[in-house]
């Protein structure tokens, strides 16, 4: 890779050991990609705070600071030398992490790990990492502008950033975002280059796609077929909104690895179908009709057999305030079934809005909870004894059974709230 003089100085250690280790990793990573150079970024979304049982054990023996420095060195810089974490150099946000002490008693997670999350927040907050603690930074103020070079993790946020906002990021990881936060640099490769952002596949949508569930099913099908190429969607699509595109992208980045898509007339880099494909011609045209929609639904429900629901899980990716309200409205005046728990997850900043608007009270009066910061798949924490889950999230239905072994039903928000109130799954495809 060709490095600028400033980058060379970082590599030589002129800005300290942490920055040197960060630059060493970026050079190894850029060389592996075949990148020619780095690009400046002032927008990093990464994952530095998550406590692990290993960190907790180390903290007990060697102290908290040493454990957090060691954890960052290994997992965020790939450095076997322990560095002291300095202040970050550029705008850096913490994505989804683990649950904190406010969730104690709702699951059987260790209190020590919950407390360590809070300690870790303080440690990294003091170094300039904004503890957004959500998979949806674009819902709480990190909304990059079109063309802005970013270094983001979180596959559902990456696809939103590229496709809906027109900003430019690859799917980065813990180590590369750690390095980017200390240097303001990331390899100039992939989606940072305009010519790599054009569509590759045309998807003809032949079944009306309107509801949240419709958009999730479409995303799950398209991701599985197209993997990590760039679909261009047209056909029977109603005007989507933030929540629908959040669900669509998260689903497509789970069954496959979609990092960018175009919807001509909707997404910013595709005013027309011609501009969506740019210099490329579609390598394949797929049709998405009733049959394909059924396949996606069946695949998402492949783990589920038992219709007695222990746990209803909403908010993956984290709910918008409007989604919280939609759920509150359905729960208003009702009580959850005695054997069924319900969690809604939303960023903490939106939780504040839900409290203020009275939605939290409606949900809690019905017996449910509004949580922030994490999710069952990330934390591996659910209400004790959970065997069967219902969710309105294609992403969570994809991952949760694999990670935790629970059966998971996927359906509409209405199906999920019905299951929470009756304790039985009665969802289906119309």
């Amino acid at each position: 890779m060709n490095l600028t003089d400033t980058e060379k100085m970082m590599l030589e250690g002129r800005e300290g050991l942490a920055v040197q280790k960060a630059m060493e990793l970026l050079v190894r990573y850029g060389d592996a990609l075949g990148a020619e150079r780095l690009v400046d970024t002032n927008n990093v979304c990464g994952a530095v705070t998550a406590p692990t049982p290993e960190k907790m054990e180390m903290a007990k023996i060697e102290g908290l600071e040493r454990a957090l420095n060691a954890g960052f060195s290994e997992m965020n810089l790939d450095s076997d030398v322990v560095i002291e974490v300095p202040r970050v150099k550029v705008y850096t946000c913490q994505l989804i992490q683990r649950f904190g002490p406010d969730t104690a008693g709702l699951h059987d997670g260790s209190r020590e790990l919950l407390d360590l999350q809070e300690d870790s927040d303080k440690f990294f907050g003091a170094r300039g990492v904004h503890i957004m603690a959500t998979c949806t930074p674009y819902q709480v103020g990190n909304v990059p502008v079109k063309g802005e070079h970013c270094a983001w993790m979180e596959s559902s946020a990456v696809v939103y950033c590229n496709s809906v906002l027109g900003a430019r990021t690859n799917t980065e990881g813990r180590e590369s975002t750690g390095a980017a936060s200390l240097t303001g640099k990331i390899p100039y490769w992939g989606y940072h280059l305009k010519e790599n952002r054009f569509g590759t596949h045309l998807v003809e949508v032949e079944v009306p796609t309107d509801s949240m569930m419709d958009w999730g099913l479409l995303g799950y099908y398209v991701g599985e077929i197209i993997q990590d190429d760039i679909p261009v969607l047209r056909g029977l699509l109603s005007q989507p909104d933030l929540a629908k595109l959040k669900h669509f992208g998260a689903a497509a980045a789970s069954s496959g690895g979609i990092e960018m898509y175009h919807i001509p007339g909707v997404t910013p880099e595709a005013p027309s179908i011609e501009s969506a494909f740019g210099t490329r011609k579609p390598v394949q045209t797929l049709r998405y009709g009733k049959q394909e929609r059924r396949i996606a639904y069946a695949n998402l429900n492949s783990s589920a057999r038992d219709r007695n629901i222990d746990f209803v899980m909403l908010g993956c990716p984290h709910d918008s305030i409007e989604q919280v309200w939609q759920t509150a409205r359905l729960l208003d005046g009702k009580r959850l079934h005695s054997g069924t728990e319900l969690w809604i997850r939303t960023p903490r900043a939106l939780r504040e809005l839900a409290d203020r608007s009275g939605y939290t009270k409606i949900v809690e009066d019905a017996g449910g909870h509004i949580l922030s910061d994490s999710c069952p798949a990330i934390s591996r924490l659910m209400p004790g004894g959970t065997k069967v889950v219902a969710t309105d999230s294609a992403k969570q239905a994809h991952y949760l059974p694999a990670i935790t072994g629970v059966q998971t039903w996927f359906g509409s928000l209405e199906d999920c709230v019905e299951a929470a109130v009756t304790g039985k799954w009665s969802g289906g495809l119309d």
Partner: protein
Amino acid sequence: MIVLHGRKVVGGSAQGEALVTSQTISGWGGIDPKTGTIIELRHELRGKSFKDKILVFPGAKGSSGWSAFFHMARLNGAAPRGFVFNKMSTKIALGLVVTHAPAVTDFDRDPLKVIETGDWVEIDADQGIVKVTKQAERLLK
């Protein structure tokens, strides 16, 4: 013996038995980093471990936790000895860099059409060379 020529992703040399899949692999939510076992529900390798194997696969998919999970597999001693793959992406490049195992891509022929599970694979990543001894040949020896 079959010889494939490609491009170094991570340098070094390694040899071992091939574990081959035609399906892309998820890191976070797709593997157990303690044992190196594939856990994705509908994956053809579900229940199989890549620990100490040469993993031969099309590429990465899914979560941005790809690198962190292969990184943890290395720390747990459960990572593959080397990687042979087709499609470059940031997930896979970063993941292989932090796994510290030799890796090669951009081959003159499709490794998925040449290598089968159980074949013996020798990687010289610095030269971009992958040598394959078919299982049948190994048995004859």
